[in-house]
């Protein structure tokens, strides 16, 4: 009986914590609508566009999650992305970050699961930071800044993300 009661209290607390941020945002929208209605509408439309942009990557991430849950157990994850995965782990997480599509927050559920199953902090950081290199957007970047700049930026960024990932790992208690 007591166990059931404490479970329902924890569930309530978790739900409140989960919806607090979006509810806060809706309140801000409400205020903005009262003061500057046209800005609020523009913001809402812009949010809608962002939401539409992330639905496809989110769907892709959901499929990946199912596959990961089905075939990858903690022992695999520790081998591929664990603290002792070495240079292979760095190359794997860096490459995965570079080719991953969509906004970073679409990847959080997957990263959270990988980490729960034993992936190292520094490799998670390398994955997130490596997303600064976007192979699919390189043509756009070249059109703005030229080939030479893009090559230099890409090489320096990849090196920088690995160093930053390592420092993040050390400071966050890997």
């Amino acid at each position, binding site marked *: 009986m007591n*166990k059931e009661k404490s*479970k329902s209290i924890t569930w309530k607390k978790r739900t409140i914590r*989960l919806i607090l*941020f*979006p509810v*806060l*945002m809706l309140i*801000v*929208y409400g205020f903005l609508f009262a003061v500057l209605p046209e*800005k*609020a509408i523009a*913001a*809402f*439309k*812009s*949010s809608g566009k*962002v939401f539409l942009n*992330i639905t496809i990557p989110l769907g892709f991430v*959901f499929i990946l*999650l199912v*596959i990961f*849950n*089905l075939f990858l*157990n*903690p*022992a695999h994850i*520790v081998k591929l992305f664990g603290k002792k995965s070495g240079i292979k782990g760095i190359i794997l997480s860096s490459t995965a970050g570079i080719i991953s599509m969509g*906004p*970073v*927050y*679409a990847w*959080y*559920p997957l*990263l959270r*699961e990988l*980490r*729960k*199953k034993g992936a190292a*902090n520094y490799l*998670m*950081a390398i994955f*997130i*930071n490596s*997303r*600064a290199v976007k192979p699919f957007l390189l043509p756009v970047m070249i059109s*703005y*800044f030229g080939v*030479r700049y893009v090559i*230099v*930026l890409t090489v*320096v*960024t990849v090196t*920088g*993300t690995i160093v*930053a990932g390592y*420092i*993040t790992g050390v*400071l*966050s*208690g890997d």
Partner: protein
Amino acid sequence: MKIAVSADGPDLESEVGQRFGTSKYFIIFDKETLAFESIPNPGASSDSGSGVQAIILVVGKKVDTVLTGYCSPTAMGHLTKNGIKIVTGVDGNVYDAVKRYKESELKHIKETDHKSDSWTSENNRAAIAGAFKSSARQFVNILPTLAGVVLLIGLFNALMSKELLSLVFSGNAFFDTLWGACFGSIFAGNPVNSYVIGGELLKYGISLFAVTAVIVAWVTVGLVQMPAEISALGRKFAVVRNVVSFFMSIAVAGATVLVFNSIRW
């Protein structure tokens, strides 16, 4: 459903602890996903009362089954009273022990079920359904924060303008780079926007240092999506990663422009 295994060390390759009360660690698994956490046993070093502390830990973590080498009758009585099943005589490494236990449980289900001919396909179906269920749960957990982040991005996009941005940059390379990293950190969304804004800023005569810092920080530092990152990966990791990435974006901007200016082909 949770399984706790008494262990000699914190990782999956550690041996199963042979005494419930004095094992150095408890590794607690989620039965469906096998996600785990290692918790040091507070009773490992104490001579008396070690069993009580281990019981408190296991009950507090809402464990359903305990796997261990040996458990005293007193501890077993307390655990059973709390609805926890105890399996003794377990040895080998922790991960193998949990796998063996899960398999034997499935086997038990098979034995009690007389329609055992389609067991393999039933087992596969159960595994797929389980994977869908836990993926959906992981998704639902992150969706409300994600919705908040999307609303916040919409606000930023509507309230900020390119003109407003170009007002802030003064022409000093150092401060402009710092501002660039700050702006890149605040804004989020498709990086293609950072290229467009970067291109516009260059036209206004803003230095390449600042523009590079905007582009790198745009993706690597995310103040707007920070709540989502904290809820997914923990406060410490999210804060450290963003702070380190902020300084990295400044360093990358400096190195890129210096190399870019010194190489000619």
